[in-house]
């Protein structure tokens, strides 16, 4: 089931690359096919979700095949509640993104075939990352996601895209290298303990001395902290987001960056509970710095894309804070936050992306009074913005409050400082809305036209889910709760 789920987009990607390219109608065909493939993946994922036993916290639909025997690497995949939540996020966002990117202008007449094919490849790899239960397989898939993003930024982004792509690659490779060292370390540790193995189940039961555990944990954390991104490893994100197409930004920030926070839970907490406990005060402090720093940087940004990227830095701070507070409330909140942040940031990136492409500039000052000529666009921007500032009644509020409430029970000062973030969030969202949408319509902003039916079709599912999950988050919470309980049960 899981293999099928991961294979559908990858096979679809191959199919798309084989399609004829060149004329506009042929490229449109490629986009139609890609959309169809992503919808099929969505359907498969929904079937998997329906067959998932919600009450259990363990791994389900497990598949296991020997892969590289001398290394003890297995092709081993399985789903738990946390993984399923993120898989669902991936399969929901991919069709939305493909649909929203139908009219993206690609630089230098590049073919749309490879553009959408890379997106599908990314989807498949992301699913593999979220389901891998073998550290080696995880590592391979984790690093492999860099390739599609590198090309998505480097080939299809805006000005400065190549530099941004290289920056992105360098940061992530550096983090990845440290993780590779930790993977090698795991091999050594596990073969010392008997048979070399990378399977999560085997690794979790291997005795490790304290120093080894901490070093290996830090190796993994380095990769995840860059990916998530945690202050001070975040600076690649604004660069990359400022040069990428909105669709790429969504896939990168909403889906692939979640691998960082997801990895912290599965490969940080599950494998190295002692070390995670040891490091948690430091990481929580860094997370709070991320929250405040990201929010302030967003307030000070003059470029819309950088602003949205910084809001994500702030939100990732909340997610990491909740994970490392180690309470059922906060960690569940964090997992839910990953899902909600994916939705709200996707909406924000897409709608601002549309604004920017209409206007031809990403500067906030290039807009003004757009509400008058594009009421639907401004409405969507407002809903996306309000969800980003965690307005109660919209999905992110539930997760943010769970994170804060859970953190408050274990560390009051950090929770109080993090709560200041809600004021800053109001400032960055409302300033953006005020400067771009309200006031008298400026001459230069007159070129902006309202959303087309296709764009509305792409964005409305996001809005509906954001509102729906704000009032009825319980189904997702039920999905996440048991898995989080299992993870936290392993902590000292």
């Amino acid at each position, binding site marked *: 089931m899981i293999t099928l789920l991961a294979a559908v987009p990858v096979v679809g990607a191959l199919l798309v690359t084989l399609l004829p390219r060149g004329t506009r109608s042929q490229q449109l065909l490629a986009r139609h096919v890609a959309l169809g493939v992503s919808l099929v993946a969505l359907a498969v994922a929904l079937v998997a979700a329906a067959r998932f036993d919600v009450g259990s916290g363990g791994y389900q639909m497990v598949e296991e095949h020997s892969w590289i025997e001398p290394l003890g690497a297995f092709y081993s995949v399985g789903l738990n509640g946390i993984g399923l939540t993120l898989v669902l996020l991936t399969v929901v966002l991919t069709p939305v993104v493909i649909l929203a990117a139908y009219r993206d202008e690609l630089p230098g007449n590049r073919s749309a075939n490879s553009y959408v094919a890379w997106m599908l490849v990314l989807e498949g790899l992301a699913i593999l990352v979220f389901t891998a239960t073998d550290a080696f397989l995880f590592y391979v898939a984790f690093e492999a996601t860099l390739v599609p993003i590198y090309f998505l930024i480097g080939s299809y982004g805006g000005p400065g895209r190549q530099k941004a792509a290289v920056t992105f690659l360098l940061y992530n490779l550096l983090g990845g290298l440290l993780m590779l060292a930790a993977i090698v370390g795991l091999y050594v540790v596990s073969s010392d303990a008997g048979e070399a193995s990378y399977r999560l189940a085997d690794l979790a039961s291997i005795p490790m001395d304290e120093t080894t555990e901490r070093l290996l944990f830090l190796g993994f954390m380095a990769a995840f902290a860059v990916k998530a991104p945690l202050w001070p490893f975040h600076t690649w994100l604004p660069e990359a987001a400022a040069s990428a197409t909105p669709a790429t930004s969504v896939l990168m920030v909403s889906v692939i960056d979640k691998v960082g926070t997801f990895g912290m839970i599965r490969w940080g907490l599950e494998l190295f509970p002692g070390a995670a406990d040891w490091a948690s005060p430091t990481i929580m402090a860094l997370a709070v710095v991320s929250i405040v*720093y990201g929010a302030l940087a967003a307030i000070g940004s003059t470029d819309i894309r950088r602003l949205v990227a910084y809001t994500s830095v702030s939100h990732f701070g909340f997610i990491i804070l909740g994970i490392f507070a180690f309470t059922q409330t906060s960690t569940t909140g964090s997992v839910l936050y990953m899902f909600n942040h994916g939705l709200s940031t996707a909406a924000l990136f897409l709608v601002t992306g549309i604004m920017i492409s209409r206007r031809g500039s990403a500067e906030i000052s290039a807009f003004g009074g757009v509400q008058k000529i594009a009421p639907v666009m401004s409405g969507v921007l407002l809903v996306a913005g309000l969800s980003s500032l965690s307005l109660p009644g919209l999905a992110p509020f539930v997760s943010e409050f769970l994170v804060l409430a859970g953190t408050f029970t274990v560390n009051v000062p950090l929770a109080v400082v993090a709560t200041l973030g809600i004021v800053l969030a109001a400032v960055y969202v409302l300033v953006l809305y005020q400067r771009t949408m309200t006031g008298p319509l400026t001459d230069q902003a007159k070129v902006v036209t309202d959303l087309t039916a296709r764009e509305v079709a792409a964005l409305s599912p996001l809005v509906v889910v954001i509102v729906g999950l704000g009032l009825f988050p319980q189904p997702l919470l039920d999905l996440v709760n048991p898995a989080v309980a299992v993870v936290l049960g392993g902590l000292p």
Partner: protein
Amino acid sequence: MVWLLVAFPALGAALLLTWGKESDRFGHLIATAASAASFVWGVVLFVRLLGRDHDDRTVTDTLFTWISTGDFHVEMSFVYDPLAALFVLLITGVGTLIHVYSIGYMEHDERRRRFFAFLNLFVAAMLVLVLAGDYLVLFLGWEGVGLASYLLIGFWQHKPTAAAAAKKAFVVNRVGDIGMALAIMLMFKEFGTTEIAAVGDSVAGTAASTITALGLLLLLGACGKSAQVPLQSWLLDAMEGPTPVSALIHAATMVTAGVYLVVRSNAIFDASETARTAVVVVGLVTLIAGAIIGCAKDDIKKALAGSTMSQIGYMMLAAGLGPAGYAFAIFHLVTHGFFKANMFLGAGSVMHAMDDDVNMRHYGALRTALPVTFATFGLGYLAIIGFPGFSGFFSKDKIIEAALAHNVWIGLATVLGAGITAFYMTRLMAMTFAGQKRWKDEVHPHESPRVMTVPLMVLAAASVLGGILLLGDWITDWLEPVVGHTEHEHVVILGAEWPPIAVSALVTVVVAVGVALAWFTYGRREVAGETPEKVSFLTRFARNDLYGDTVNEWVAVRPTMTLARGIARFDQHGFHRAITGAVGLIGEGASSMRAWQNGFVRSYALGVFVGALALTLALLVVIWR
């Protein structure tokens, strides 16, 4: 079936926001009908509640589990009790009247449907706020009304001032929300629940410091929403919104939510003397500050807004007096809802007549041009200054009496407040309706249409008759199951016990002095057509909202913005450069090594030989040792 109350307006809002242009013609009717349906249902529920036993007047309606994970458990539940019942009637009653009024007021606005959608959204959120059975659900309504307030203040988005005012209101409210959010977290930590009733029950066995902290945090939230010092600055700017919004949200209902919160959390405030004192101090300071601001404003809406601040200060103060004051706080809240909504709508009617001019110095002698507005406004005026027999007379006197019984000096300050209230309201009346006409010739004041004057008449009647709630102490009796019972305290000044009638007499005298002062300054004398520049320091102080904005600007806004811009620049140019710089260093090292690859075969060969030689020497050294 309590949820139906919320469902009507919520459905109305959803319908109007998603329906296309074709609903422009009848959208306002849908919204008004939704609000009215909610009111009718509120009356039905109220009658049912009346029929129940005195101690059995709480109906809990649990809809579904909102959030449940680990120990954190929140039910989406509505609790309909005597306190909530009063609010439901006030919100839907005044709300429906204002919907009707808005049909006329917003007639020529092309976005009228949107306006009504937001109004419905507000009513729904406000009902969630007062019906919530859990603090987190209350917070949902709390932020919902904040959103509606944001949308409606900034409804005329093309005006930069309106957009800025809307943003300011939301952000200042968010500062208060920190208090609310932290209070809820503290409840979760200490009590393991955020359900209002359960929290009340848990207070008894908890450390006093925790309860005090809870009280102060809730007070911070209340200050934000109710525009109390130090978070008062947004309310005056909020007058940028359409006048019906000012009447409904920024006078009658939303801004009183802070008072509701304090009364609803009476278990917490009862248990903490410190928190109660803080409430009294905040209320007292705001009462005086709002009144002073009200005296200096020439903008009719801002003068009324100052008055609103001041009156909410009264309510806050009463709520801070503990069980002795809760019921009177709510009583004043209800009567204030009537007369202030009445006067705001009246002001809207005046503006309607004066081509949206808000400067009272351009008014004068409007009593003949706008007879209905003048009459209804006048009744509201008599109510707010506490003319004997009118609703404000009863509600304000009760608060002053309780304050005097609590502490003579606080009591006297409230008496002084009543005098200032009389002064600024008389000033407003005199400048608007009395004296000589000061409007320009091209302005032709005309009475508003029926759809606007009928709500005025209804509200005027309520302003006059609101006092009947006190008949036979009905309101204290009615609220007793929620706020608890207390014996009537006696006012003792200078060792002598003062009967209530003496207190009333004292207040009436002070009020009469205030009225007379204002009348001789503004009614009898010619009022300048433009705002005088040369004024005393005190006037300038009041005109600038006691420099609240200046303080905020220098204490909060500027430092934050400077820091934010600095961080953004540093992050892009400093921080990022430092890291890419390190990468660049490696690159430079690589390019300097590239010079060795010069293409001369013989120099490569030399390299090989030197290398071989070095290797040999190293080997020899190793062997020798």
